[in-house]
């Protein structure tokens, strides 16, 4: 490591002396500004600006052209700019039952999946915290490892397990429990499994971080005062890990609401979720104004959870 540090020293010193003096002084003077500006401008341009354009397109009309939407500003012959804003797309979404039901269904599926992630994830996180010094990093590693392998392939793995001739049905038939395969793939059940399976690490990790920081002497004190372990858990441990519970739940709930791949591969056409509707609206129907309106409505639904998440995230990383 020492050698490395030395070589870094040398290269940076060389770079520094190579810079013309004036440029060097300018960099030094505006150092703070430069460091902040680069990522700031990037995010303004590629994160914030796109939302305004989506908003603009959502109030445009569908046109058979490239790009397939009307312009908001149009020059008329007399040289006056006319502004065209059409709320038809929003009215269409609000009044069409398909969209409303799909929104409701997405929120329901995401909420139930989040609950199951918490139900199974909490004991796993707690178990890892309570493990010995050798087992702890190994368990943690094993929980994180699936997160690094392809998300798409983890969903695909469940297609093989759940299909009619799949592993689960074959085993059940071989054991004589069922005669005919049960349809599991392309059902809501499969979507739940898929979400819980792929999002579980996002629940376990914040919970683990929170439980790890917990003061063990509090549990001992509660036990000394005659509290039963279950009672201690609900009165001491759980309330103290609420930030982890909230952060983990939102990390699962928010992206799961807009999930596209899982309902598409495991739900087939039988499970309607808003992410899938948006994707199809854009790719198959090429109705971009409606797709944009769907995206904005989804964002509107998720703004509150996102703000809550940022509040807790800011708290845990301690920005200031």
């Amino acid at each position, binding site marked *: 490591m020492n050698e490395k540090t030395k070589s870094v020293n040398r290269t*940076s010193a060389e770079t520094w002396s190579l810079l013309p003096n004036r440029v060097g002084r300018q960099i*030094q003077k505006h150092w703070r500004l430069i460091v902040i500006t680069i*990522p*700031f401008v990037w995010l303004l341009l590629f994160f914030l600006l796109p939302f305004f354009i989506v908003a603009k397109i959502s109030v445009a009309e569908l046109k058979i052209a490239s790009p397939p939407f009307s312009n908001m500003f149009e020059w008329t012959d007399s040289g006056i700019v006319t502004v065209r804003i059409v709320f038809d797309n929003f009215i269409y979404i609000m009044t069409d039952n398909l969209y409303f039901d799909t929104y409701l269904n997405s929120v329901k599926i995401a909420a139930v999946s989040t609950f199951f992630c918490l139900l199974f994830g909490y004991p796993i996180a707690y178990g*890892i915290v309570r493990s010995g010094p050798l087992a702890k990093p190994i368990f943690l590693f094993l929980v994180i490892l699936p997160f*690094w392998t392809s998300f798409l392939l983890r969903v695909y*793995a469940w297609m*093989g397990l759940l299909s009619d001739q799949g592993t689960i049905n074959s085993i059940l038939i071989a054991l004589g429990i069922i005669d005919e395969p049960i349809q599991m793939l392309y059902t809501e059940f499969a979507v739940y499994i898929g979400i819980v399976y792929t999002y579980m690490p996002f629940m376990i990790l914040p919970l683990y971080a929170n439980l790890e920081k917990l003061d063990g002497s509090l549990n001992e004190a509660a036990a000394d005062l005659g509290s039963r372990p279950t009672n201690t858990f609900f009165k001491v441990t759980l309330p103290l890990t609420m930030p982890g519970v909230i952060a983990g739940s939102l990390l699962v709930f928010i992206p799961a609401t807009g999930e596209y791949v899982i309902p598409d591969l495991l739900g087939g056409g039988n499970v309607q979720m808003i992410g899938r509707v948006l994707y199809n609206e854009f790719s198959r129907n090429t109705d971009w104004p409606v797709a944009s309106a769907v*995206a904005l409505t989804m964002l509107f639904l998720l703004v509150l959870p996102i703000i809550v998440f940022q509040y807790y995230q800011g708290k845990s990383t301690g920005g200031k």
Partner: protein
Amino acid sequence: MHGRRSRFLTVMITLGLAFFYIPMILLVVYSFNYSKLVPVWGGWSTRWYKVLFASEEVWGAVSLSLKIALVNATFATIFGLLAALSMVRFGQFRGRTLFGGMLMAPLVMPEVITGLSLLVLFITLRQVFGWPENRGFATITIAHITFSMAYVAVTIQARLTGMGQSLEEAASDLGAKPFKVLTAITIPRLMPALVSGWLLAFTLSLDDLVIASFVTGPGATTLPILIFSRIRLGLRPDINALATIIILVVAVCIAIAALIMFRQQKRDLLDQQLAKHVK
């Protein structure tokens, strides 16, 4: 009572790990199945690996995905580092709340929204400036940098907050210029976080299907796009073979990274103890 609780937790960990790993193990086992129908066992064979390696389409997708992932990881790490420094070290500045919000939002933003909004941005840019003429490598890379820098920034922020800044202060008291302080002190001390941030950005990029599908154009097929188009219609034994290779590569890389980090940690600990003795 205490004993029962810990037995319960052990059972939960075991079940949890079984739940995590059995599907992947089956995925690997079925990649060696001779049968064309994935779930029907037809004897051991490496037939599907041969099919996979013969496919030029697959190689093209792999090389495009790797190129995007490399460029993305490098830029995301640089921007993530700058962003983390801004958030942790620079105190209050105008627009800090907005900046922090934009930085964290991609962590939870549904991919379909990010994908659609970036697509309309690229189309508008093309209308106004004539760039990007074709969507593909550049547009996917820009999209990936935008969401992966958030993950890198979180990783680095955590380490920066825990590290304190007395060494940096000492260096600038002794006359080191800000750039020098960054390269000679902050970056070496942040190395473990930078490495894990880079790796994270690399995998996030390799893994992304939804955003890439939105911002890509004809002719640019990344590996996830290729896999998705094949498995949408059902199970494919050659995809099992591909999955096995990916899992193997990831496992080896992670093991190496974990080993390096573990050693680094041990050395850091040793350095600290030495420092205490010197005092």
